[in-house]
Structures are given as structure tokens and as C-alpha cells.
């Protein structure tokens, strides 16, 4: 399915930089940002009182699966690990876990968001970028990892602009 550029770029502050929102009434944090707070007893209380909030991108795997029958645009990546990541600030995010063989991913694994290419819409379409998650700790040994899939140690380098790995 083709996406117009507008539908893509209006989400870039969220997908590139994890910009969420916080309710100034009850302090609950949301990602993606919301214009009303679902937690406040009457939602209208929070209308116009949501403020931008930046997520750190740090969290841990809450659940995961290994996708073999790919979503459109992800056919070249199968099998890939899809996870729900519970961020340090609270919100759960859906995204791939990369830089680690599937059999070493586990619930509770500490991960960090990393900026990557998500998918391409054919040769002439929009290229989607956004967050994936890579390990932020040395996972317990399961199988001898291949050199190429060696997980990064703590202090995963911050994503560099212009350098994007799928």
C-alpha cells in the first residue's frame, strides 16, 4: 500500500525521536502523544493540558514473538523478532528486537531504542524510518552467538544521523 509523504512525515517526531506526551493533571505519560488523558476521571479535565514528553528509549522486553509470515514490506527480514517493550517511563511500545539472535531474546531483557530503517514501499515509494530495539545488556548465554550477531555491550552507541542499518 502506498503512503503519501504527508502521512509519513507528520509522524516523524514520534517515530524518530520518541516524542510522547504527559498529562499535567495526573502526570501519566503516553506514547504516541494524546490530546486527552484516558486516565483522568473526566477526560475534559485534561483537554489542552497535555504537555510534550520525551521518552528515553530505555526499557525491557515485556513479550515477544518470532514472525515468519511477514507484514508487508518486511518480507526480506524473516524471521524477525517483534516485541512489546515496557519503557522506563511506563508506556509499552511495539517494535522489532535486532542485533540479537531470536533464541536469545527473553522476557525481561533490557533493551534500548535505536533509529533504523523500517521498510520501503517499493522502488519509488516512501522509505519508512523509526525505532527498533537492541540489547542494552549482555543477555545470558544460550548458544554461542555468531560474530556478526554479537550484541552490543552496555552503552550502545547513539544512532548517528545519516547512518541507518536495517
Amino acid at each position, binding site marked *: *500500500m502506498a503512503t503519501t509523504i504527508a502521512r509519513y512525515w507528520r*509522524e516523524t517526531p514520534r*517515530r524518530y525521536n520518541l516524542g510522547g506526551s504527559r498529562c499535567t493533571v495526573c502526570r501519566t505519560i503516553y506514547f*504516541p502523544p494524546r490530546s486527552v488523558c*484516558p486516565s483522568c476521571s473526566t477526560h475534559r479535565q485534561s483537554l489542552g493540558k497535555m504537555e510534550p514528553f520525551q521518552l528515553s528509549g530505555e526499557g525491557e522486553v*515485556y*513479550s*515477544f*514473538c*518470532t*514472525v*515468519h*509470515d*511477514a*507484514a*508487508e514490506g*518486511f518480507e526480506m*527480514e524473516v*524471521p*524477525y523478532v*517483534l*516485541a*512489546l517493550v515496557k519503557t522506563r517511563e511506563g*508506556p*509499552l*511500545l*511495539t*517494535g*522489532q528486537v535486532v542485533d540479537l539472535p*531470536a533464541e536469545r531474546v527473553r*522476557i525481561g531483557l533490557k533493551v534500548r531504542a535505536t533509529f533504523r530503517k*523500517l*521498510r520501503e514501499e517499493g522502488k519509488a515509494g516512501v522509505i*519508512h524510518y*523509526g*525505532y*527498533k530495539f537492541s540489547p542494552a545488556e549482555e543477555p545470558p548465554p544460550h548458544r554461542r552467538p555468531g560474530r556478526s550477531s554479537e550484541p552490543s555491550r552496555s552503552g550502545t552507541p547513539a544512532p548517528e544521523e545519516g547512518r541507518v542499518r536495517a
Partner: protein
Amino acid sequence: MREVAVIGAGMTRFGELWDLSFREIGIEAGFQALVDAKLSSHQLNAFYLGNMASGSLLEQEHIAPLVIDYAGLAGHHVGAIRVEAGGASGAVALHQGYLAVASGAYDYVVVGGAEKLTDVPDFTANRISGSTADQEWESVFGATLPGLWALVARRHMHDYGTTREQLAHVPVQAHAMGAKNPNAHFRNKITLETVLGAGPVAEPLGVFDCAPLSDGAAAVVLGPMDEAKKHQEIPIRIAASQVACDTMALQHRRELTTLEATVTAARQAFALAHRAPADVQVAEIDDSYSIAALVALEDLGFAEKGKSGALFAQGAFAPGARTVVNPSGGLKAQGRPFGAVGVAQAVEVVRQLRGQSGERQVPGARLGLTHNIGGTGATAVVHLFERVN
């Protein structure tokens, strides 16, 4: 609100119906239901059609009047209304029809559900059904519907010790039931080994954990209970019809392994009908994925939280049990033509309560339940049906 009865029921067979068009299956189910209700077309006040995605699947929007037209009813100018709620479209259409008759606005309505999934390649149908989850915050990141359900499965295993083998019992029972249903997409029995040895779709879920892409249509005729005997020897009363919703994306749920929409709809339905889960003899629940069935059994109140896997594996929902689950074969074996599912579940339960289900009859069933969800549970619908004589 007045009491509403199902006075007619009909459905096509489910499966890969390459020789039949959308209009043909819609009309076949509708006329079966009208004939069953001994209702002439001019008595019909309105038509509700549950359909998830005719626009993306057939490139045909505005599909409800099209069915009415080919049913020969355009000349009567019967109002035709399409209802969309992802995989729960059929059940929400039934809710709309129920409300219309209960309120007294209409006397007789047909509620249909129809979907044609095999007119596009499988990967297109999967992409379209995946769009019932959140496109912007799930699909864009590589999530598929089976992938999202696999996340639920993994967490259910982690929190409650549910096993891969327990999940595999769900499709095994579904196929055993489907083998007795002439309308079913799949009529072959399978074994645990078949399920466990099948290729992975989204681990821990494999091919047999996922309901198929099917074509099919179903329809029921609703009317006021106090007129029902004129049309049907055994009218079935709709004892409750409840729709509840939750967050679109799984990531925003309060709990991953509980569908609060199902919990809410079920609680309200049982309260309205003054009944409890233990009173239900036959239930058609949403087993679009094996894990979805286990979670539903807990959310509907048929199993304690975390115990559904062990109970199911023991045969606690098989023929002979207090509550028999999915005698039709469910979405897994009877088939999954999205918009038709919720209505087909009603057809199965109505026939069970009338005692017309042949080989798969649940003996003496008087109270039946249907449960249908859209996406990963952003919409859940629960109906209770009761035989009153």
C-alpha cells in the same frame, strides 16, 4: 424495549468459493433465512450487513444496497445499512438489528454478514485483515495480526504456565467438530502432532493456530417476540446483545492477557439476562487464533484466569461438557469470512437451541452464547440466546 426473537436463519458453506461472487453468497444466505422465517420480502423494514472490507477486498464500497438490489428488493426501497467493526462486523450488525426491533422502530429486519476473501491473493487479504490493528503504531513496525496474538500467547505462557501443547488442543477440537459440519471450510480431523509439527507463522503460533481466510455469508431474520410464533415454531429469544470497546493497539491495554472489552460485554450480558456462565450449554467463541480462544474462555467467565489451557486440554469444553464450545468448528474449522463470522455464530447457536444440529447437536441446549471480536479485541460483542418453549 420489547423482546426480540430470531425467527429465521441461513448460511452458505464457508471456504474457497471461487465459483460464487459476493452478491451470490449474500443472497443465498439471506433467502435461506427469509424462507426459514416464512416472511415475505415486502414485510421487511431494513437490512443490516456486516462486512469488514469490501472496499479493499473487492474495490466495491456501498455494498449493502448492492445485495438488496440483487435480492430483488430494490423496488421495495428497503433501507440497507453496512456495519463495519473489523472481524466483529457481523456481531455489531446483529446488535444494530436487535436495537432496531427492540426499540420498536422496525418490526422485521434481516441481519446479514458476508465477506469474499479469496478474490485477492492471500498476502493482500492478510494485509487488509491486519489493518484491523493499529496501522500507525503496530503494523508500521512489522506487526501482523498473528504476531500480535503471539505476543499475547507468550505472555500468557510466562504469567500462567500455559504450554504450547495446551494451545494445540484448541485447533484439534475445532477440526474434530468441523468434520461434523457440512458447511465447514475444513472437515478433516487433525492430531496434536499435526499442530505442533506445522510451520511457524509467528512463534509460538503456527499455521494451525490461525483461522483460515474464507469466503461465506450468513443471515438471520429478527422480529418482535410476541409475533414470532406466526413465523417460527421455535423462536429463539435474544436475551442480551452487548458491544464493548477497548484501546485500538495492544500496547495500550492495561493487561496483555485480558480483553477488557470481552469482560465488559460478557458481564453486562449476563447481568441483563440474569444468568451466569455456568448456565450456558453451547457457546460459539472467537478462536481466530488458538490463544484468542483460551483468553476468551477466561474473559467470558468459563475458566478461571490462567487455567483455560489446562482445562481445555482436559476436554472441559468438548462434547459432553457442561458448556460445549464451538460445535460448528469455530473460526478455525468452520472458517473465517470476517464480516460473516458474528452472524454465522448466531445461526449455529439458533439451530443448536432449536435442536436442528444433527451429528453435532448439544443435547437439550436452552441457553447459548456468541462472542466475536475485532482486531486484537478493540471491539468485543457478546450475545445470549434463549429457547423459551
